[in-house]
């Protein structure tokens, strides 16, 4: 729940940024409802605010959105139901829902966590965006309260159950190193895709320990 409150506040700041970039209330709200990927939206609107073209804005947004492609196979076994239900679920395949679902201990809990996080997050994201546009510059900088540390801390808690065994530890350590190496030399969003390659050495380590 605390993650969702933080998301609501981040949505507020997105609304403020969208307003300062000249987006109307309708455009900002529709973007939040249809794109529903925080990092991508911030990237696109920042490009527009800095005078960049729509092509650059959409391009940088989609590079950041590409990692969500990797969450589909992780979540897939936990999402029951037919095509319609899966098509709705697909809209919410993002960092936060995958994090909460992957931290659950049973399949049923994972599915419940996915839907609960996804639906509350969607509502808060859209509502926060609208409020941010309306309030505009009247909101102070939320980073004053350390809001920018809320997300990495939340993902630390969500990472913990993933690194109880050796392969997970290798995946996390190699991914962290790859992110640091790739950040200065690749555009925003690419380092996380590069870091996903960490699963290969991690799997090899897992095979070796299985063979023993």
């Amino acid at each position, binding site marked *: 729940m*605390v*993650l969702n409150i933080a998301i609501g506040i981040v949505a507020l700041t997105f609304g403020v940024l969208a307003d300062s*970039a000249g987006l109307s209330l309708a*455009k900002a709200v529709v*973007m939040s409802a*249809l*794109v529903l990927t925080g990092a991508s939206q911030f990237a696109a*609107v920042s490009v527009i605010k800095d005078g960049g073209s*729509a092509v650059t*804005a959409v391009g940088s*947004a*989609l590079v950041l*959105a*590409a*990692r*969500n*492609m*990797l969450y*589909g*196979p*992780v979540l*897939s*076994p936990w*999402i029951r*139901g037919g*095509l319609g239900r*899966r098509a709705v*679920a*697909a*809209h919410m*395949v*993002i960092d936060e829902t995958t*994090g909460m679902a992957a931290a659950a201990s049973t399949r049923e809990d994972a599915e419940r966590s996915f839907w609960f996080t996804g639906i509350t997050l969607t509502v808060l994201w859209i509502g926060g965006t609208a409020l941010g546009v309306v309030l505009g510059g009247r909101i102070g900088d939320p*980073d*004053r309260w*350390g*809001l*920018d*540390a*809320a997300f*990495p*801390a939340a993902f*630390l*808690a*969500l990472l*913990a159950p993933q690194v109880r065994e050796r392969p*997970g530890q290798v*995946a*996390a350590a190699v991914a*962290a190193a790859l*992110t*640091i190496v790739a*950040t*200065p030399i690749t*555009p925003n969003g690419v*380092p996380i895709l590069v*870091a*996903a390659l*960490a*699963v290969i050495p991690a799997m090899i380590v897992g095979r070796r320990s299985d063979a023993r």
Partner: protein
Amino acid sequence: MSWSAILVMAAGAYAFKAIGLLVLGGRTVAGRMQPLVGLLPAALFSALIVQQTLVSDGELVIDARLAGVLAGAIAVWRRAPFVVVVLVAMAVTALVRAAA
């Protein structure tokens, strides 16, 4: 930003999100690939943590976030509840930032 740019962005983002769920249709990926998928959350969450702690405007920086996230890591290690982890990280970041 035009309506068409927003719609293209939405369609592209949805395609990335949907491809795994709709192609797999509730199945898990094929046997040999399964360990790789199982390790993806560890790799991706770790990358996200590093990116959100040490990156600002596409560059590596050390700032108040690092202190907060390290405090959060101690809270995780001490098995503190989720809400405590997040609040400790925010409070330490805010304090370091105010002191700087």
